[in-house]
């Protein structure tokens, strides 16, 4: 029998005193390409990091590289989030930073970042070009890293990895934030890499995986558990129905029938057009689905509604019956909106506990607030209970499994019962049962008179309350309709 490419014996890992991986054994043979799934928090990312020696573990991990292949003899790990720094080496970013224009560059451009990566690994830039093109990322070369959306950050990471073609490639949630087209292209490239001899390990709960995947496993009780396919993997438990908190059963007060209106809105920087002649009206109680490929302008559109974009002052935008730039403050606007987005999550205060994160929703601040009032504390308690987060309330938000972090941020979003909810890809990184849970909450919430704007790429993973849809492409509205496809 051939020797394994990856040979793990007796792997043990503890996190905060709790065992995560226990006496784990795993072998990956040449020609095998794996998907690792399973519940969030089960230790998938830790195992991946252990293989590339980014996590301290006890036990033995042996990697065997093949000499003579043109593929570099390395194991390369693509984390679920892209950790870039600014030019001064720190990461003290805030989520709205990409909309504030400043001549002094804060971060590298995509092009400079890739050149840097290529030099480090001695790669030829010509080999990166087809990948950039395949992922529809060619037009972002001169964009600064800070200006990218979460899906575009994912693409930077993927381009680097696919360009490097390491002998062992581990991708942690590679589809997060990708539009459908890019996702198909990614699978095509991954299949090509597998054919060239790259051993793939994908951490995902997704169904649309490359054809070359031929082994499946999940982590359960700290061990690798080989299964037949994705469907056979354990999911997080279905949620026990709980009574909806009483304070959220009241329709929020909104003094205008039109919640938001954009009239012929355009945003451009130099040569680059981000939004072009966009007109859109959102009336009270409507539930909108907002769609479009990565880079089509969705985040910019939402940031105009949320008071986060300076270009709002140069366009005709009406929010809650008042024109933008007529003397209102952004805090007046944010007070009426509950928002969750991958960027907000990404840049959230690392010192915030779950309780602080939720409480900050009353003040629209990122983890910081004044003295919380008694009634507000009661509401926070009710939400903690509703989302099964009571025992996690004093833990730091970013140390929880991704699924729980999202629920905590959803709690932050709704704690003040705002008239308008903006949920921008709220289910990124969640598995199917978590997504179902999340969307069930959104549906229930929407039943009480809220207005909703929901961004999601995949139609199988949407709340059922959505009744209208706006589709953007290259900054233009290509579809604005009552939508019924969910019921068909």
């Amino acid at each position, binding site marked *: 029998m051939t020797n394994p490419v990856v040979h793990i014996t007796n792997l043990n890992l503890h996190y905060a005193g709790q065992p995560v991986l226990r006496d784990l054994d795993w072998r990956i043979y040449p020609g095998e390409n794996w998907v690792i799934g399973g519940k969030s928090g089960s230790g998938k990312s830790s195992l991946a990091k252990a293989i590339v020696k980014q996590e301290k573990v006890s036990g033995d991990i042996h990697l065997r590289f093949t000499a003579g292949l043109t593929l570099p003899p390395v194991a390369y790990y693509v984390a679920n989030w892209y950790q870039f720094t600014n030019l*001064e*080496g*720190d*990461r*003290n*970013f*805030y*989520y*709205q*930073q990409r909309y*504030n*224009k*400043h*001549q*002094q560059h804060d971060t590298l451009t995509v092009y400079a970042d890739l050149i840097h990566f290529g030099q480090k690994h001695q790669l030829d830039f010509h080999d990166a070009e087809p990948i950039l093109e395949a992922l529809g990322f060619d037009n972002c070369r001169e964009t600064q890293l800070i200006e990218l959306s979460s899906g575009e950050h994912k693409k930077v990471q993927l381009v680097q990895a696919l360009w490097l073609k390491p002998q062992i490639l581990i991708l942690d949630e590679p589809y997060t934030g990708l539009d459908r087209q890019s996702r198909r292209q990614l699978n095509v490239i991954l299949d090509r890499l597998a054919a060239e001899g790259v051993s793939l390990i994908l951490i995902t709960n997704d169904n649309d995986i490359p054809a070359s995947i031929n082994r499946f496993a999940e982590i359960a009780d700290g061990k690798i558990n080989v299964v037949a396919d994705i469907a056979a993997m354990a999911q997080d438990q279905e949620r026990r129905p709980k009574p909806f908190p009483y304070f959220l059963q009241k329709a929020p007060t909104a003094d205008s029938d039109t919640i938001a209106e954009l009239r012929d809105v355009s945003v451009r*920087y130099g040569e680059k057009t981000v939004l072009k002649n966009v007109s859109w009206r959102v009336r009270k109680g409507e539930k909108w689905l907002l769609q479009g490929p990565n880079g089509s302008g969705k985040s910019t559109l939402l940031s105009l509604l949320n*008071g*986060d974009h*300076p*270009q709002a*002052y*140069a366009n005709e935008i009406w929010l809650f019956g008042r024109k933008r730039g007529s*003397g*209102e*403050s*952004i*805090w*007046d606007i944010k007070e009426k909106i509950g928002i969750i987005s991958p960027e907000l999550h990404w840049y959230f*205060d*690392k*010192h915030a506990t779950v309780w602080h994160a939720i409480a*900050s929703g009353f*003040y*629209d*601040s*990122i*983890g*910081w*607030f004044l003295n919380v009032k008694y009634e507000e504390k009661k509401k926070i308690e009710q939400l903690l209970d509703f989302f099964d987060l009571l025992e996690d309330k004093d833990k730091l938000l970013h140390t929880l499994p991704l699924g729980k972090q999202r629920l905590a941020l959803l709690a932050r979003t709704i704690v003040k019962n705002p008239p308008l909810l903006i949920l921008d890809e709220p289910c990124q990184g969640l598995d199917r049962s978590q997504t179902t849970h999340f969307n069930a909450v959104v549906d229930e919430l929407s039943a009480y008179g809220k207005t909703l704007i929901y961004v999601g790429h995949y139609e199988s993973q949407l709340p059922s309350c959505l009744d209208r849809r706006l589709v953007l492409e290259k900054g233009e509205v290509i579809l604005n309709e009552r939508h019924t496809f969910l019921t068909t």
Partner: protein
Amino acid sequence: MANYFNTLPLREQLNQLGQAEFMDSSEFADGVDALKGKKIVIIGAGAQGLNQGLNLRDSGLDISYALRKEAIEQKRDSWKNATENNFTVGTYEELIPSADLVINLTPDKQHTAVVNAVMPLMKQGAALSYSHGFNIVEEGMQIRKDITVIMVAPKCPGSEVRAEYLRGFGVPTLIAVHPENDPEGKGWAYAKAYCVGTGGHRAGVLKSSFVAEVKSDLMGEQTILCGLLQTGSILSFDKMIEKGIDPGYASKLVQYGVEVITEALKHGGVSGMMDRLSNPAKIKAFEVSEELKDIMRPLFQKHQDDIMSGEFSKTMMEDWANGDAKLLKWRAETGETAFEKTPAGDVKISEQEYFDNYLLMVAFIRAGVELAFETMVEAGIKPESAYYESLHETPLIANTIARKKLFEMNRVISDTAEYGCYLFDQACKPLLADFMKKVDTDLVGKNFNEGKDGAVDNIQLVQVNEILRNHPVEVVGVKLRKAMTAMKAIKTV
């Protein structure tokens, strides 16, 4: 123009120097109302100008930018900054005559020229705001009597002013009204509204005066903040090289060490910083810093005396007039030091190692912070002002050293700070020559605790802790830091 401070009778000098009141949040209940609907024109669209303007507009105020004709015609960065964020931009002639409040956010050195150009255009009864009082206090600029003159000075870089605002917070801010220019009595209302517009009211506001701000700001920046960090960094690096420590390691320890060490200072004051050391190391650092305080005290006092008498600003302005001859010479010398020219090595230094292997810098910082604070308070400046201009700003300056060493620090700080920094550095190095001869690698470069068993004398440790924790900078620091609840760690390395 005569030095304004020197024209005042002693009692008025003491009165203005002694103004420092930590404001209650209830004082900001009116929000931005006093400036609602007023035309606000900002001069200068650099880091402070642009970011403050973004905050003020997001707070519902009417903001535009006045730039010099050349900056507009040549589409300079300031013009791009303002236009790309969709502000109205115009020349002084176009915008100033209708302005209710003109905010001057240009560098100190340009103030006289800017104010002379702007003042004749300002309408009757308008207001003029500064973020630093040098022009008024040291240069003695006289503002037309119908104009209200205020100061709003966020105590953080412009990028932080914006970042903290959007997180729903703010940065500590100092506000003042010039007593010679408050003809309608609206100065405080304007200053408070402006402060709310930038988010400053959420992080602690100090009611100060132009005089107190200038005399404490100059003192802080030239002694502990820039001067001593520069001297301490260069001496530490040279000592390690002399003793055969790897240059790459030495360079990294010095470049990032001040930042890591002062991060502890930011959260827990001098005692918080000292608590990061083992007990024997703490006692050693205490002893070393006591010695440093004795050696450097006369130099700190000389700087404060020259600032108070106007001697410092007089000689600096002479250098301005002389084409910055001294400044440029010193700047070039700083660029040539071995520390500046040795890149940080590719070695991993853990957070704790920065304390254990760089005890000398801990001692320098304790000595410098306490000396600057003590000297200011002895000169009549209130502890609150002295705290902001010593301890509070040290981590901010340390952060610039971590970015690109001393060159970057001197590039980022104001021109007054840079000049004063070199002045201090020139005098301090010879002063410390004998002291440095005794210093070995246990204080800088290697782990002080190595080969020691960690034992200390109970009573000595209790005494040292008591002295550290009861220093007045610690007492006032506890109060002021409480108001800055959401201080965030600056993440590097």
